[in-house]
């Protein structure tokens, strides 16, 4: 039987492995969405993407509505939870934002962007709580 020369063999093996790993990584969120709610996952993804589009145009209320819908359709959609966290934080609903970010991080703990959002949010939220505490203390005085 004809055997491929060793260098070619290793090249093909590398390509195949890359496609396999890369392909599965790219498909992972969609796959989990589809698995989590047959049909609902796909619609949830669409609502989420639409929310991102309108947020880009400054229509944050509409965006928040879309992300709420996306979460309703698929509670396991980490992207929608993350985006909803941003919308809540932006409108000063800090408790809701905290819950959304935490859920997003629970669903996708290795996602760098969600973690970054969560950490920046915590910093701002702590500052706000400190200001509130100061105000309450001075009112008591």
């Amino acid at each position, binding site marked *: 039987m004809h055997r491929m020369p060793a260098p070619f063999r290793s090249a093909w093996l590398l390509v195949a492995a890359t496609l396999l790993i890369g392909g599965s990584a790219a498909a992972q969120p969609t796959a989990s969405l589809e698995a989590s709610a047959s049909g609902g996952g796909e619609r949830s993804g669409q609502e989420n993407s639409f929310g991102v589009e309108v947020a880009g145009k400054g229509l944050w209320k509409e965006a928040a509505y879309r992300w709420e819908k996306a979460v309703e359709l698929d509670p396991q959609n980490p992207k929608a939870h993350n985006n909803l966290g941003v919308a809540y934080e932006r409108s000063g609903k800090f408790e809701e934002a905290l819950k959304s970010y935490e859920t997003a991080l629970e669903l996708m703990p290795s*996602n760098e962007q969600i973690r970054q959002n969560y950490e920046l949010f915590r910093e*701002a939220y702590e500052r*706000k709580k400190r200001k509130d505490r100061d105000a309450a203390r001075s009112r008591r005085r």
Partner: protein
Amino acid sequence: MGLARHRRFAAGVALSLLCFTACAAGPYVEVPIEIPIDAKLDLSDYGRVLVGSFVSQTNENLDLDSETSRLLRNQLRLNSRLAVIEAEVEPLGDFSDAALEASGLAEQFDDMAAEAVAIGDGEISRQEWIDLEQDKLLEDEEYWRQLGEEFEEPLIISGRLRFAAEERSGFSRRDRYVRDSFNRPRLVRSTQFQERNAYTLTAEFYFIDGASGRTIHRERFTEEVIFGRDEESSALSSYFELMDRILPNFLSVVTPQTFRGTRILLR
């Protein structure tokens, strides 16, 4: 084609594929956001603000009380929803050395301090005595209530201000790079005595309810600017520099603030 070339080719193909899949896997959009932070004080009961006079203490060539009143009025006009009452209020109290001497209060204090020592009471410093006298003026609810009545019960802002030149000379570390005999850079650390002065500004703001005369909030800030003794630095320009640092914190008491940042939206 040599073996090494084949390997390089294979690695190149794999790397390009990896990059492509990584980019396709995570599309995201970075968006700027402004996070609203409420003002420290709930001022919904007030529509107007009166910047009253301040008790002041400085020996520098600077009218601390009127400069501060004017600055705060301008800042409130620009940054708050409250209507600023355009009125000059009678000076509350000048505690500069010259004013204390002229009014005879300094002498009065010296007599009181001597008497306290004579009867075996603990000594009280001149600054402590000044602080107590200032407290009396700032906590005089009847005075503030009457002032409030005159201006139809606005929010009144007053407080105490202290601006002083202080000595800050001392040893400080100095790092510099020199080249050795082999032309290599080398860090040389040394300490040297520096003659420096500083201006210190302490501002304690009182937020007073014009209807009852009661203080509803107090906030104290201290800032300092240090400069070399040979540098030119006037008291007035240093005062403005220090007030620039204090103003954002002062405004956060009466106006909502926003934190600016960026967040990431995931598609």
